[in-house]
């Protein structure tokens, strides 16, 4: 008994970054992953994942949008009239998405061109709306913010895994078009725009040239539904906690 009261007292103090806060960050990465467990945000996981680099940018954008819309909604949660809460949430999300889009357009135009359609679609990404309704409307700002970061990373992690598989097998490249690939790989040669390129006759690609053919199915969005399915399968067979939930 005495122990329990002590514990409660500790929780009442609410440390800035305690166990509960840590759980908010790690839960969506595994036990409560937005894509594989909550099955939210599937559309964008199908659409943007044909290359790794845009997927990473998309993951960062979604993480920022979820985190900050969670934060603002949570700050306003006692003032938001219940009748119009969904619309208010949408206004907050749409504002943040437009902010992300404007900044991207000014500072990374090439990526903006590639992602402009999908960035607009963050507004309708179920993860954002879902977290606002399920978490931010009932929790304090700091925790909501962490929940947003956690869910954004959980979503982004899966996105990047799918993108790595699709780009590697579909196009035979990795990190195509990313500044890292362009700067690190060095000598000016059009073909070294990629880290790995199985289609080129230079470097690593030369070794693949004779026997390997890229899989065109991986290029199409439908491939990611198979990959998501397989990821969910693996996730559930590793993490037994998930099996009975659904």
């Amino acid at each position: 008994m005495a122990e329990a009261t002590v514990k409660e007292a500790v929780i009442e103090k609410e440390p800035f970054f305690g166990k509960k806060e840590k759980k908010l960050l790690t839960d969506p990465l595994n036990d409560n992953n937005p894509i594989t467990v909550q099955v939210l945000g599937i559309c964008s996981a199908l659409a943007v994942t044909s290359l790794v680099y845009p997927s990473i940018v998309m993951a960062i954008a979604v993480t920022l949008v979820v985190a900050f819309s969670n934060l603002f909604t949570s700050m306003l949660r006692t003032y938001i009239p219940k009748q119009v809460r969904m619309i208010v949430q949408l206004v907050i999300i749409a504002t943040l998405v437009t902010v992300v889009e404007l900044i991207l357009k000014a500072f990374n135009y090439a990526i903006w061109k590639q992602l402009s359609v999908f960035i607009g679609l963050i507004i309708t990404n179920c993860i954002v709306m879902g977290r606002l309704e399920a978490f931010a409307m009932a929790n304090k700002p700091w925790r909501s913010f962490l929940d947003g970061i956690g869910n954004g990373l959980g979503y982004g992690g899966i996105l990047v895994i799918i993108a790595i598989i699709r780009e590697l097998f579909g196009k035979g490249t990795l990190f195509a078009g990313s500044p890292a690939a362009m700067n690190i790989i060095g000598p000016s040669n059009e073909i070294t725009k990629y880290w790995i390129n199985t289609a080129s006759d230079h470097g690593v690609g030369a070794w693949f040239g004779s026997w390997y053919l890229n899989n065109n199915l991986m290029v199409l969005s439908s491939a990611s539904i198979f990959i998501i399915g397989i990821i969910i399968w693996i996730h559930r067979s590793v993490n037994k906690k998930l099996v009975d939930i659904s």
Partner: protein
Amino acid sequence: MHNTRYTLIFTLILTIVSATILSLLFFGTKDRADLAAKIFEKRAILSSVNTLLDKDVSKMTDQEVLDVFNNQVQEEAVDTKGNQIEQSQILAAGYKGGLPEDIDMAKERKKPEDQRMYPVYVFDNKGEKVYILSIRGNGLWDEIWGNVAVKNDFNTIVGASFDHKGETPGLGAEIKDNPAFSAKFRGKELYNDQGNYISVQVVKGGVKDPPHQIDAISGATITSNGVSEMMFRGIKEYEAYFNKQKG
């Protein structure tokens, strides 16, 4: 439960606040975004003469792109009869800035032929002129466009670069993503030995006429046909200009 009056005032304030933030940010980033868009275009134009540059376009910084463009490229605008178009006419057509680079090819395509204007970028390759032409056509899903650089014999293609609005990644989008596709255009010829204009065709199943044909992208027939059509019609519009330049 909040009353209607509160709800109205709350939503009003929220809307005004978000609208203010967005418009401030929009005007704050507009100059930078416009500049980024211009540099993006200029990179595309320069990548058609990539082999003639000291440095690969994709490795140039934004400033280097602008420097090369300012020092080595002269912009001109021409009509379909090959006449030069003045800045005032470009402004009159509704393009702010009045430079040939401000001409919107998508709008020009919809005009009647005798009113169209086209940009020509004359690239100075160590004293030798290379003419970069803008062309635009239709792919499978949406528009495709490109820049074709032609030697001063107005026959040999030095290089080309393509872009698209919404072709399928990995299939039609290869016209832009795969440098090997645009590289195939190098050294191709617009006129045959008899001097007839035939441009360059993208063909399936083996090239039979090497100076005028290149291999299509497998799985992207309609985009490939779109490139053929654009290469034929788009460059033909510059024919009058070629003849004037040849004198």
